């Protein structure tokens, strides 16, 4: 072992660049709540692969930073992807990518942890690695390079990004990151090599080491010491972990710029297209006391003007009304707003509408997803039109004047009648909203309709389905537009070409990595930013490396075929997913196990976890 020199503080070389770039507040650190990292033996850089103003909203990284900073001699810092102007300035001035807090080269850290929130951030990871001067591919990294580890939602099909990571962590990270860091330190501490580190990491539960798996007939074959399937990590009880009370408060205008308190994890409503609803099972609620305590403490520590109670389906929390009543009382007269995203139509009750309507009103969004009851049954979105209309009346009677509705095009079995039904449903929602609004205010009534394209995702009952070909998506968009009422309706689309790329990156195997690298080399970065996305650049990149993206996005998988993510065990039993796929095609719905009996998804048994309901039971 050699004594490493203290890494260089790059600030004096970074600061002169700031006069030339937009929004320098992205790069300067010194926010309230930013922690000056201690001198430490082991340095961790945690990166969100997008611009500062997107990444600062991510709560997972805050949770993990909190967990890691409890370890002795470990320093944790933040990293984001510099915007294109800053990236050009860094390259021109020959300055490597730096951590925010101590402004040292990212490459000088021992571990670079990257969350993969969704597919369109993949090129940003390569951009950051390149700016950091870390070899893009794990196979090219040497002893002195940081260990590059991924986590987050998109690792449930890790393959398209697998060659760029030394290890990927599947599932809840609270305990797993600690074990990962301990293992890394233990092996390097006794002088172990990089390959010994990787071997040791493969033995940590939930850790996937891509280089230990090779392509073989019928999928990937593990080498000695690597498990055949990597089982997702899950923490049994959220109450055992502190929620981040004093997160960094950004100066720059960022998305979701507010206190967020996670009120529950998981959702077992069982929507068949929804990956989050499958891979974050089981439902684990936090207690009302803990939620209220953390919300108040965090508002006090940050000074934010809004608190958001987040989860996949917050209104399902068995004690939500109690939480809202207590928070509303505590925050009276402060001008602080309470927002509840991810509401479900069937759990947004009249009393909830009143409680939320008392303070500052934040946005109200519901996701019926499909226009016809037939298709809502196919996708297991157990919401009826009557419930949606009743909810709309309750909200507009409580003072809301705008509601946003999410729909999806291209769901399995969809017909033109289903598409046109969206327009009819929106018209009836509009009518209900107007009727519940005083006459002189009806001009202000708005229904925003956002329509995305179905992207089949790993570990869902729809994982076998192919995506609808893009030309057909565009035709159905026209059908929808023709069926949509105009007055008071704000209609917006997700770009079908973007959804196509998402499908390629979500369903592909390891070969897709070559396409991602080729796209980045030809300038693809910040693909989630509409003005930056180039469909032709991606098509050309795939062509250059001999990949036919349409086949990856559109071809269905045969039940029984080895899927690209077969070596990732999310805890869901394959027979359950297959049964759900069959029930979908028959139009049969499946209830939520937090309200009714167990549906046999297999997660609790496989992962040694159980449903945690703070109020003892849920009321449908």
């Amino acid at each position: 072992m050699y004594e490493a020199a203290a890494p260089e503080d790059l600030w004096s070389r970074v600061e002169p660049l700031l006069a030339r770039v937009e929004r320098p507040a992205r790069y300067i650190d010194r926010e309230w709540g930013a922690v000056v990292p201690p001198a430490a033996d082991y340095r961790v850089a945690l990166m969100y692969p997008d611009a500062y103003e997107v990444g600062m909203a991510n709560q997972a990284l805050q949770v993990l930073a909190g967990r890691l900073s409890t370890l002795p001699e470990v320093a944790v810092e933040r990293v984001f992807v510099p915007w294109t102007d800053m990236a050009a300035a860094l390259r021109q001035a020959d300055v490597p990518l730096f951590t925010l807090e101590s402004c040292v080269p990212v490459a000088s850290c021992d571990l670079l942890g990257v969350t993969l929130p969704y597919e369109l951030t993949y090129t940003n990871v390569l951009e950051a690695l390149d700016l950091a001067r870390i070899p893009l591919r794990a196979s090219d990294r040497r002893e002195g390079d940081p260990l590059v580890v991924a986590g987050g939602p998109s690792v449930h099909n890790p393959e398209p990004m697998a060659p760029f990571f030394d290890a990927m962590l599947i599932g809840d990270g609270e305990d797993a990151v600690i074990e990962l860091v301990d293992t890394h330190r233990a092996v390097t501490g006794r002088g172990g090599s990089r390959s010994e580190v990787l071997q040791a990491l493969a033995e940590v539960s939930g850790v996937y080491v891509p280089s230990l798996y090779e392509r073989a007939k019928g999928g990937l074959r593990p080498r000695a010491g690597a498990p055949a399937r990597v089982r997702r990590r899950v923490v049994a009880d959220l109450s055992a972990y502190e929620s981040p009370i004093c997160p960094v408060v950004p100066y720059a205008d960022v998305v979701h710029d507010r206190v967020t308190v996670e009120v529950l994890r998981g959702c077992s409503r069982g929507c068949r297209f929804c990956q989050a609803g499958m891979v974050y099972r089981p439902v684990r609620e936090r207690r009302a006391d803990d939620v209220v305590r953390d919300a108040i403490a965090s508002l006090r520590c940050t000074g934010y003007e809004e608190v958001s109670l987040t989860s996949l389906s917050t209104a399902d929390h068995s004690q939500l009304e109690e939480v809202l009543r207590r928070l509303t009382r505590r925050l009276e007269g402060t001008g602080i707003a309470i927002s509840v995203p991810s509401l479900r139509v069937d759990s947004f009750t009249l009393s909830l509408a009143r409680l939320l309507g008392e303070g500052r009103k934040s946005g109200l969004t519901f996701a019926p997803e499909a226009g016809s009851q037939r298709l809502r049954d196919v996708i297991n979105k157990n919401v009826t039109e009557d419930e949606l209309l009743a909810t709309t009346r309750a909200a507009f009677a409580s003072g809301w004047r705008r509601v946003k509705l999410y729909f999806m095009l291209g769901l399995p079995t969809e017909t033109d009648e289903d598409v046109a039904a969206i327009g009819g449903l929106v018209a009836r929602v509009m009518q209900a909203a107007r009727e519940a609004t005083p006459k002189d205010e009806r001009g202000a009534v708005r229904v925003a309709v956002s329509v995305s394209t179905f992207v089949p995702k790993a570990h869902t009952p729809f994982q076998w389905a192919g995506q609808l070909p893009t030309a057909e998506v565009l035709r159905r968009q026209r059908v929808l537009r023709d069926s949509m009422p105009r007055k008071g309706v704000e209609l917006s689309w997700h770009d079908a070409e973007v959804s196509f790329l998402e499908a390629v990156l979500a369903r592909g195997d390891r070969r897709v990595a070559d396409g991602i690298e080729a796209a980045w080399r030809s300038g693809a970065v910040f693909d989630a930013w509409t003005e930056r996305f180039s469909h032709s650049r991606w098509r050309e990149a795939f062509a250059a490396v001999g990949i036919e993206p349409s086949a990856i996005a559109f071809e269905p998988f045969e039940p029984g075929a080895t899927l690209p993510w077969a070596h990732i065990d999310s805890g869901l039993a394959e027979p359950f997913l297959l049964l759900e796929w069959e029930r979908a095609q028959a139009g049969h719905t499946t209830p939520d196990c937090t309200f009714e009996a167990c549906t046999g998804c297999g997660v609790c048994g496989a992962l040694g976890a159980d449903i945690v309901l703070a109020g003892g039971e849920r009321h449908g």
Partner: protein
Amino acid sequence: MAESFTLRVCFRKMGRLRHLSHLEVARACERAARRAALPYAVSAGFTPRMRIAFGPALPVGTAGEREYMDLVLTRFLPPAEACAALASVTVEELSPVACAYVSGKERSLAAALTIAEYDVHLEGGISHEGLERRIHAFMRTGTLSVEHKGKQKVYDLAEALPKEPMVVSCEDRVLIRMAVRMSERGSLRPDVFVAAALGPEVHVAVTRTDLLIEDQGVWRRPL
């Protein structure tokens, strides 16, 4: 109407935080007031907001030694206590300098503050030699035409700069000390003036050192 108290806070924006925009500073100050648990007043209406007002905006990249905000409180708190509470929840680079109450009838900071004093530090080892002569020669040209968002704006230098700029040597650096008059029609940016007088190749770091009220020809601080 309930009783209210207008707390005037003088604060600094220094170091790395000089790269913040005016909006970013304003939002940070509001959040600091909440963290400090000051008894701030909230506006009535559909979206209640903290009753807070700021002096003239400081551009991104410009530091400020004595910037101001007025914060309306619902009950009296000794100014030193309010200042200490704010200091305990802010970082040094954006922190209070002084606090005092002003009459609620006082003109708004934005309207009352009409003089800004600046130190423009010249970077890159420029020597004192000849600078004064070049500045004065430029002043004698009488006007400065500035293009802003496609529009030409002509400043009368004697009007825009109520004092002759001074060249000061400070340790081993040279700075130009100047006062700028602010009006509804805008104010001449000191970095623009220096670039026009000395050439665009001169790199500068600008600090607004004071903001003043002009009262019948006499300049005074708002606190």
